[in-house]
């Protein structure tokens, strides 16, 4: 498997960390290219720090705090090699802005910022948000689809799948063929819209075969005067955490929904929630509680006491963890067949799938390094180091 999606060309699987991107280099290059960095919008940081990393099947997006968007791998419609940053990474803003301007002639992109990203298997979503309530905010989709996951017809050159006024923020969440967006309005209300594969009823109840695929964003839930909502999505399930009312809605994969229903669970004191493709994990008071597929060691730390997590993030089928006690050490467990859980020292004849049943050290900082964040993709692990 080539690692172009990690921004590392022509390399095979690695079980040791390798640098893929230096933000210091990017800052210099982007400044030298005179690319407009959108910094003058309320509540948006002007920094080159990383806001989010999202991984599709064979591509990766990195969103910076200032709205700069970088991509690696199979980027489809938003790939334009004219904006290469280095051998692996491409600046995506310009190509996206060109496409938006083709559709909306009069749009002044200085009023907008890319504020959220998500990736399905073969496509990408971005929000172009305006802090001016009289201007539309947009959600755009780019790429290929097979289960309606683009949220629009493949052939159309109008990449907009949602637009609205008076928007405070939009959060995107995608996995495999399904996406949801949390739309927070200035009024204090929140809506959850979903599209793509609904094969297990993760978005809405399946009443007929046609309900198994939702081709355009559809309103799923509306919360009045409640924006304390967080969505988490797996390949065939959706978890909606309502922190205001201390309730969790789990839809889709029956095994996950049923196993969650069997426990008396409160969102109080929950520090982290994240999803692998086939399981959801809650971290509460130093205990991780996971529901779903545990066949590849995904649930092996269930109910075991761990030092309180500073960072806890899921990859496709592995967990990545940094404790507050040891903030300089990154550990991982679960399915590590591609080096994503670090070096495997067990017996490969017995454990052919390289399942890690205990936290395995992936990386320890050196000198003055500091771990800023961690992210997981398809059998891939990203560690952000200052």
């Amino acid at each position: 498997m080539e690692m172009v999606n990690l921004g590392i060309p022509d390399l095979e699987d690695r079980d040791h960390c390798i640098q893929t991107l230096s933000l210091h280099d990017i800052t210099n290059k982007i400044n030298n290219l005179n690319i407009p960095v959108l910094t003058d919008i309320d509540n948006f940081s002007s920094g080159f720090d990383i806001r989010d990393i999202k991984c599709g099947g064979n591509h990766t997006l990195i969103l910076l705090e200032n709205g700069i968007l970088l991509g690696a791998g199979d980027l489809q419609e938003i790939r334009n090699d004219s904006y290469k940053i280095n051998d692996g990474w491409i600046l995506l803003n310009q190509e996206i802005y060109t496409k938006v301007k083709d559709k909306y002639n009069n749009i002044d992109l200085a009023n907008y910022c890319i504020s959220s990203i998500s990736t399905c298997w073969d496509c990408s979503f971005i929000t172009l948000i305006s802090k001016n309530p009289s201007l539309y905010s947009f959600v755009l989709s780019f790429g290929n689809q097979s289960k309606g996951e683009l949220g629009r017809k493949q052939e159309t050159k109008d990449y907009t799948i949602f637009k609205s006024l008076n928007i405070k923020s939009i959060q995107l969440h995608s996995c495999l063929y399904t996406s949801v967006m949390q739309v927070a309005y200035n009024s204090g209300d929140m809506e959850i819209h979903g599209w793509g594969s609904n094969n297990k009823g993760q978005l809405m109840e399946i009443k007929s075969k046609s309900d198994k695929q939702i081709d355009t964003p559809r309103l799923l839930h509306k919360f009045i005067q409640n924006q304390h909502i967080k969505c988490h999505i797996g390949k065939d399930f959706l978890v909606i955490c309502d922190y205001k009312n201390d309730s969790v809605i789990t839809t889709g994969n029956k095994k996950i929904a049923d196993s969650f229903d069997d426990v008396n669970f409160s969102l109080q004191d929950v520090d982290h929630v994240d999803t692998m493709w086939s399981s959801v994990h809650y971290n509460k008071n130093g205990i991780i509680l996971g529901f779903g597929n545990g066949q590849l060691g995904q649930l092996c730390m269930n109910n075991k006491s761990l030092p309180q997590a500073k960072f806890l993030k899921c990859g496709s089928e592995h967990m990545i963890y940094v404790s507050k006690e040891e903030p300089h050490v990154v550990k991982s467990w679960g399915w590590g067949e591609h080096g994503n859980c670090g070096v495997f020292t067990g017996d490969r004849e017995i454990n052919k799938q390289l399942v890690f049943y205990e936290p395995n050290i992936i990386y320890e900082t050196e000198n003055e390094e500091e771990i800023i964040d961690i992210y997981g993709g398809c059998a891939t692990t990203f560690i952000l180091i200052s």
Partner: protein
Amino acid sequence: MSSFYDEIEIDDMNFDEATKTFTYPCPCGDRFEIYIDDLYYALSDLEEAGGELPADELSNIAICPSCSLQILCIGELQDVIDIYEKIGMEIPK
């Protein structure tokens, strides 16, 4: 415990007309694959056996070329026959 990563309905898989192959995403980033004729024979055997076979005799299995994971493709033989008819391909004898 099943040795398969997942059980996936044929309806949820993608069919590539160029390669005549059913595919489904693997969590490693590659795709599980099974050639249409192989799936047809596997489901024929399963149907002949009354819908049940020991796990080690099942062959309706899609394999990822990049890792050790496998999925079990579940569905009716008719689902595959429908694809043959849709693409105008002859059903194997």
